[in-house]
């Protein structure tokens, strides 16, 4: 069942393998390639229906300049940052606190509490659309940044808590005993021992949560209305309406919207160092 290397003695199979691999990769990347190409196309190309061929008179930054000159994309982009960054930070803080308590302390109802965190993940978000919107309207938060931040924090924390709890539970228990024997308080343990050891988990979780929140379209549409609050995903959809024929500009805007999650990944990548706990206990 497990993948076995194709032996050197079967050159045909090896070449076939490489060819299929290339093909799958191409299919996988096709939409991305199309969007990238389109973002460099001139308006003539779009008008003449040249969506897949080589761009005639490509423009390198023309469409990108247009995005900022003619659409409120800069605003949407800033909105997305204002929504995503505090949400991610809050999720990280809350889930670390939750995870620490749930993995290291025994108290009545701990399992139930954990089950609630985990169980929340199984709810399809869509069924919450009307109640959450009503809630936000009644709370006076509808069409504000707070609505999206609050919702994302509430909903991402469930999964993040599961993630953090399991990570903290995997840290050697004797580390905590040793700290306790030395009279180190729970908060000191959290800050000086757990958080430094959690760095890879925090980095991974930051990337995941950032991507989820940044790419969210559904709640952006449900909970916002005005351009001053709309994040980039909902904003892109707006462009389509207003600039129906300008697919090249929409494509350029899409590219811009996709940058932060990718940047985030490369930024955090160096923290994904496995075996950060090596040396704590026998190893």
């Amino acid at each position, binding site marked *: 069942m497990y993948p076995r290397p194709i032996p050197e003695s079967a050159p045909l199979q090896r070449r076939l393998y490489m060819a299929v691999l290339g093909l799958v990769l191409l299919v996988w990347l096709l939409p991305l390639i199309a969007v990238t190409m389109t973002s460099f196309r001139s308006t003539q190309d779009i008008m003449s229906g040249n969506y897949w061929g080589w761009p005639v008179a490509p423009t390198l930054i023309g469409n990108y300049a247009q995005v900022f000159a003619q659409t409120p994309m800069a605003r949407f982009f800033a909105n997305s940052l204002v929504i995503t960054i505090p949400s991610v930070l809050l999720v990280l803080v809350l889930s670390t606190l939750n995870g620490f308590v749930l993995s290291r302390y025994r108290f009545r109802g701990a399992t139930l509490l954990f089950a609630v965190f985990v169980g929340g993940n199984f709810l399809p978000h869509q069924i919450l659309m009307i109640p959450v919107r009503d809630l936000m309207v009644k709370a006076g938060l509808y069409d504000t940044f707070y609505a999206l931040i609050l919702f994302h924090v509430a909903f991402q924390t469930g999964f993040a808590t599961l993630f953090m709890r399991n990570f903290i539970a995997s840290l*050697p228990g*004797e*580390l905590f*005993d*040793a*700290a*306790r*024997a*030395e*009279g*180190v*308080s729970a908060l*000191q343990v959290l800050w*000086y*021992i757990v958080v*430094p*050891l959690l760095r890879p988990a925090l980095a991974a979780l930051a990337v995941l949560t950032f991507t989820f929140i940044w790419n969210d379209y559904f709640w952006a549409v449900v909970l916002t209305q005005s351009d001053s609050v709309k994040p980039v995903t909902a904003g892109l959809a707006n462009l389509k309406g207003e600039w129906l024929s300008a697919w090249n500009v929409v494509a350029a805007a899409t590219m811009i919207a996709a940058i932060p999650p990718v940047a985030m990944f490369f930024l955090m990548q160096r923290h994904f160092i496995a075996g*950060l*706990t*090596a*040396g*704590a*206990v*026998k*190893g």
Partner: protein
Amino acid sequence: MTASLQLHQIEKNFHGVPVLRGISLDIEEGEFVVMVGPSGCGKSTLLRAIAGLDTVSSGRMTIKGRDVTRLEPVDRGIAMVFQSYALYPHMTVAENMGFGLRMARRPPAEVDQAVKRAAEILRITDLLHRKPKQLSGGQRQRVAIGRAITRSPEIFLFDEPLSNLDAALRTQMRVELSTLHAALGATMVYVTHDQVEAMTMATRIVVLNAGLVEQVGTPLALYHQPANRFVAGFLGSPRMNFLAAVVQAVGEAHAVVATPGLPPLTLGVTDTTELKPGAAVTLGIRPEKLRIVAADANDATGFPAQVRLVEQLGRETVLYADASPLQTQGSDSGTSNVTVQLGAMSRRAPGDAIRLAFDPADAYLFAASGKTLSVAAANPS
């Protein structure tokens, strides 16, 4: 001498299962007490209870006369060294050793001083800026001990600190720990399942079994005068040979016992209350007290045997010999073979027919309850 640590009727139940069943113990200032026992005997639980990491169900615990039963570990004046070292992986050696003091907001100069002193005692000054993962197992354990020293505790607690080290390093660390104990003069409580560690390092050994103290005493006292069959079997490697026997006659201070394969033996006993003719008893003979005699020797306690397995240890030789109808019980080898330890190299090979003998004065007699009845071999000579 005041008692450094006093345990009074310590009991602990875990989900209704008794783990510690009324343990009382006085440990004097400066003692090196080793608690030893098979896995699951409660020794680690007891140590964690002394440390304050686990609570006890009932009983009282004092350190230097202070009741610490309900205190947090830090308020008890203890420092603990763990089997897995439990070093903080993201801190350097110096940071690891000074962490507790730093968290207690002691002045940095004092922390540095304490770390420096501990590092000098353990000769790890040149490692202070390394991270734990850059250290070998022995070095890590030394850092863990250093972390304990930094706190200048009343009592050091060690939880199987050498179990993760290889054999050579373990021997070395054993010597170092003994030296450290002599140098610091501190009270140390050490838990291990390794009877060699217990025998070599302890000023007193506490043998635990099933949550109870079986016997407390100096290593040699326990070896030569085990209070019961459990202690006799637990200390000493290879293990004592145990033979099922039946009492034939009971005298003022002696008993005559018979076992298949041997003529009736007359053994001196101290306690005859559990002895009456027909009672089942156990005979114990240490492997080093058995010797090979000439095949035609007219030895009263001699018996023929056939060598099954030979373990050459260079300085000594251990033979496992089939001496049926004489059969041992619960031996290390899992057979009813007799274990013989010879103090020299031996050319015996499996299949050799030999004749074994022992001095009845070296034999132990255990009652059915396990209690030692004989005065035998009380002389260590």
